[in-house]
């Protein structure tokens, strides 16, 4: 890829973010402006901002990468990411807005009148934000590396610096403008390339993706292996090897790799002829195109469980994402909160056609990514692979800009959410100055994690953050909004159960994974176990401790459910 175009695109996105951020800066004055934009943002602006915040590295890069590798089984991922808003709309959107509080810990305290529960919620918010921020930084590192060859930490650093600056300078008001702009940028940057490349595919005679063979190289391809890896060969191939394969050194020799697994050392060059079968890293399934195009056809172990668990995590996790919830408080009332959510559904639905198309095209035009396992970069690489010349470079620059917008906006939103909690609950003082200070640890800690951790695919890391959110905040919100019987003890027990179960799965996966068999599936996709467990504990313990149901429950229910046109006593709450 021509790095000049890419660098220009990244610089433009960063500059525009700064300019729009500064535009907002002149408007934001008070603490309330800072946190929730004084609740005067219209539904379309707000929906665009939510879309901008939500469409992260996982959506922009990860979804297409996972579809390229796993095929139809992964179509559930974007559907779940979108469907989460329907569940959120139906179960919590309007009541949450009517609660009139800023953050998840505020809601917890309002609903259950307990400062200890508030502290637990704050801890979980910071954990989820950091878990979700890590892949954003990784994605940025990957993008800058793909475009310019710069070391990975460079891209991570750029995002960290820009995010701290915008968040500390402008707060939510300017972030709302920045986020809304970035949604439309991301939509353009994914849909236009997808459309163009689909036309190119059509002009090539629409090569099909249902043949009974593994992918083949469409042209002679040289791959430099970036780290030691194991390749699974299903049809014999004879690449020209410079480097070490299966312990033997070669200098430009033709080596026949028979069916089975082969170890390739870091730095080895493999030159494949046109039409050679693509060997696949053992981390990813080595499957025929026909199997790839069909769900539940044995591409993954225990795929029915994994699919259900993925659906549960994405559908129920969305409502528990701290950076999305804070956006609901920027609606003027419950009714607009609903309309905003409906607009978000529409905006997300439009976006996800892009990654789906690009992931499928990647199977045809960039199968070599299966060799190294770097499937996350398929969206970035496809334009120059499929279109030569300036057109390809311009499209590549566009997706690069979109990808950077994705990291910046999601990272900014998450940093905002974490900083709000840190300034309120750790520094124990509100105010603009503390908020600015809190933005620093809020984004530097996950930046450190991203530097330390390497391998986990961007999409997988994000789906773990969803699993934690679904296992902790989802039961709290759903039961808190609809069930008078929720007790403080029950809420605490449920959140701790869900948090510990999902949290240990996350730790095990990040530190030791991937695992084989059932343990691997359960640890990578814990939600189908942990979410029901959290709900069951929360309900069961609440039923056993009816004396710990907050006494002001009537007032709270009035506050959450009675529509705004009625002016009545909704109780008082100072967060």
């Amino acid at each position, binding site marked *: 890829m021509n790095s000049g175009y890419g660098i220009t695109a990244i610089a433009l996105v960063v500059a525009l973010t700064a300019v729009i951020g500064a535009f907002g800066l002149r408007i934001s004055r008070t603490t309330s402006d800072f946190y929730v934009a004084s609740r005067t943002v219209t539904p379309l602006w707000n929906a665009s901002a939510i879309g901008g915040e939500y469409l992260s590295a996982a959506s922009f890069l990860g979804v297409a990468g996972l579809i390229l590798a796993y095929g139809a089984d992964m179509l559930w991922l974007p559907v779940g990411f*979108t469907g989460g808003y329907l569940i959120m709309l139906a179960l919590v959107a309007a009541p949450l807005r009517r609660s009139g509080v800023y953050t998840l810990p505020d809601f917890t305290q309002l609903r259950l009148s307990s400062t200890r529960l508030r502290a637990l919620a704050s801890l979980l918010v910071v954990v989820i934000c950091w878990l979700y921020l890590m892949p954003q930084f990784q994605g940025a590192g990957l993008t800058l590396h793909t475009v310019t060859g710069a070391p990975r930490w460079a891209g991570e650093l750029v995002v960290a610096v820009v995010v701290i600056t915008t968040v500390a300078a402008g707060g939510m008001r300017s972030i709302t403008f920045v986020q809304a702009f970035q949604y439309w940028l991301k939509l353009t940057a994914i849909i236009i390339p997808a459309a163009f490349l689909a036309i190119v595919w059509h002009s090539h005679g629409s090569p099909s993706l249902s043949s009974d063979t593994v992918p083949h190289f469409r042209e002679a391809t040289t791959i430099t292996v970036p780290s030691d890896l194991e390749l699974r060969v299903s049809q014999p191939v004879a690449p020209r090897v410079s480097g070490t394969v299966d312990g033997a050194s070669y200098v430009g020799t033709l080596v026949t790799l028979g069916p089975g697994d082969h170890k390739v050392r870091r730095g080895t060059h493999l030159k494949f002829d046109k039409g050679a079968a693509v060997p696949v890293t053992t981390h990813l399934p080595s499957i025929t195109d026909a199997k790839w*195009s069909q769900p539940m056809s044995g591409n993954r172990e225990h795929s029915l469980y994994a699919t259900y668990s993925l659906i549960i995590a994405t559908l129920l996790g969305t409502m528990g994402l701290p950076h999305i919830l804070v956006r609901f408080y920027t609606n003027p009332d419950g009714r607009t909160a609903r309309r905003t959510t409906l607009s978000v559904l529409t905006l997300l639905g439009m976006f996800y056609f892009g990654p789906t198309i690009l992931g499928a095209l990647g199977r045809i035009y960039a199968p070599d990514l299966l060799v190294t396992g770097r499937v996350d970069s398929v969206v970035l690489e496809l334009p120059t692979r499929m279109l030569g010349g300036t057109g390809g470079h311009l499209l590549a620059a566009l997706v690069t800009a979109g990808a950077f917008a994705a990291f910046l906006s999601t990272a900014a939103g998450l940093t905002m959410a974490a900083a709000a909690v840190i300034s309120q609950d750790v520094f124990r003082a509100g105010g603009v100055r503390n908020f600015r200070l809190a933005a620093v640890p809020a984004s530097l800690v996950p930046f450190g994690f991203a530097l330390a951790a390497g391998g986990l695919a961007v999409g997988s890391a994000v789906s773990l953050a969803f699993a934690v959110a679904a296992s902790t905040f989802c039961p709290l919100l759903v039961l808190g909004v609809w069930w008078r019987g929720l007790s403080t003890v029950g809420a605490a027990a449920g959140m701790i159960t869900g948090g510990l179960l999902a949290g240990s799965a996350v730790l095990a996966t990040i530190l030791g994974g991937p695992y084989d068999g059932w343990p691997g599936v359960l640890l990578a996709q814990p939600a189908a176990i942990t979410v029901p467990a959290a709900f069951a504990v929360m309900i069961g313990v609440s039923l056993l401790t009816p004396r710990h149901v907050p006494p002001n429950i009537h007032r709270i229910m009035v506050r959450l459910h009675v529509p705004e046109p009625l*002016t009545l006593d909704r109780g008082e709450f100072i967060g």
Partner: protein
Amino acid sequence: MIREVDRSKRVVVTGPRTRAVPGATQRGVLDLDEQTTIGEVYLRSLIRTQLRLALTVCVAVVLIGGGLPLLFALWPAARSYHVAGLQLPWLALGVLAYPALVAGGWAYVRAAERNEGNFVALVERR
């Protein structure tokens, strides 16, 4: 719990006052404020109606979201069945799922607003 309502300290916490409520029709609001039996009945019926609506949406999502994987798992022919040039899973999940979600959301918003309208009318009529 019955709480003394200090009328002088009443504040609107959420939302601007969007329309003036004539003083004479405040009975229903008072019922809610002061937790009279009738106020409690109103509130519970509102919550029950809205919950039923929300659960309807969830059941629909569960039936489709839970049913499709099962269909593909139990009936392999559906995995490669072609409709309009696309394989069924790609048509259903890659294309049709999104408009279906938006339609579901739209229907929900309409119904939820209608329920709230009915509730406001009921309370103000009293």
